[in-house]
């Protein structure tokens, strides 16, 4: 079985990309939140529970440059989501067998 990296670049409030990914991501795979997808990494948002619920069997990452761009450095992230830079994005793609973009 391939180890998958799921890429989410859409806001969880506007699009169903995160919902569908959380429904269809196999246990043990990883999710990288970037672009408008980073809003899903915020604690205390209406979307937080859905993410937290799958933290037991999925690993979550978020792109720091997109967090800073959107002024979210002062907002708490959900515990256990790891911040990466573009180099870390590349490393994640290398470490997983397949990258799936939820467009």
């Amino acid at each position, binding site marked *: 079985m391939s180890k998958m990296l799921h890429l989410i670049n859409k*806001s969880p409030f506007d699009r169903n990309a995160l919902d569908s990914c959380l429904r269809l991501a196999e246990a043990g795979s990883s999710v990288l939140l970037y672009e408008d997808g980073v809003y899903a990494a*915020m604690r205390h948002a209406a979307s937080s529970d859905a993410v937290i619920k799958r933290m037991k069997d999925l690993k979550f990452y978020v792109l720091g440059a997109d967090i800073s761009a959107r002024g*979210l450095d002062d907002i708490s992230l959900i515990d256990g989501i790891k911040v990466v830079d573009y180099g870390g994005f590349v490393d994640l793609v290398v470490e997983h067998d397949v990258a799936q973009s939820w467009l």
Partner: protein
Amino acid sequence: MEPWEEEEGPDVVKRFMYVNRRAPYGTIYALECLEVVLIAAAFDQDVSVVFVDDGVYQLKKNQDTTGIGMKNFSKTYRALDDYDVEKIYVEKESLEKRGLAADDLIIEVEVVAADQLRKIMAQQDVVISS
């Protein structure tokens, strides 16, 4: 002379509302809508700007776009006041859903509940969304 000039005088004032429902940077709509509002301010019309849904993120403080290589236009919202654009509404429910409050925003706005915003929206002559 254009046909409409026969019907309407030059001093008709319409209520224009610009509606922002999208986050900044992920798409260009926030920036290009702001560009319209700045031009619109030069016309003697009644201008309101509304931020609902992900549009409220446009006003989030502390934006720093260095890492994504795009232009940070968030400070331009501060110029709206100089352009006499003073009716700026943010929906309360949209802020709450995103765990944000008025003091997370880069400018002072009027935070309105959905049922108030309904009434404000229903008082416009032209609504431009992007």
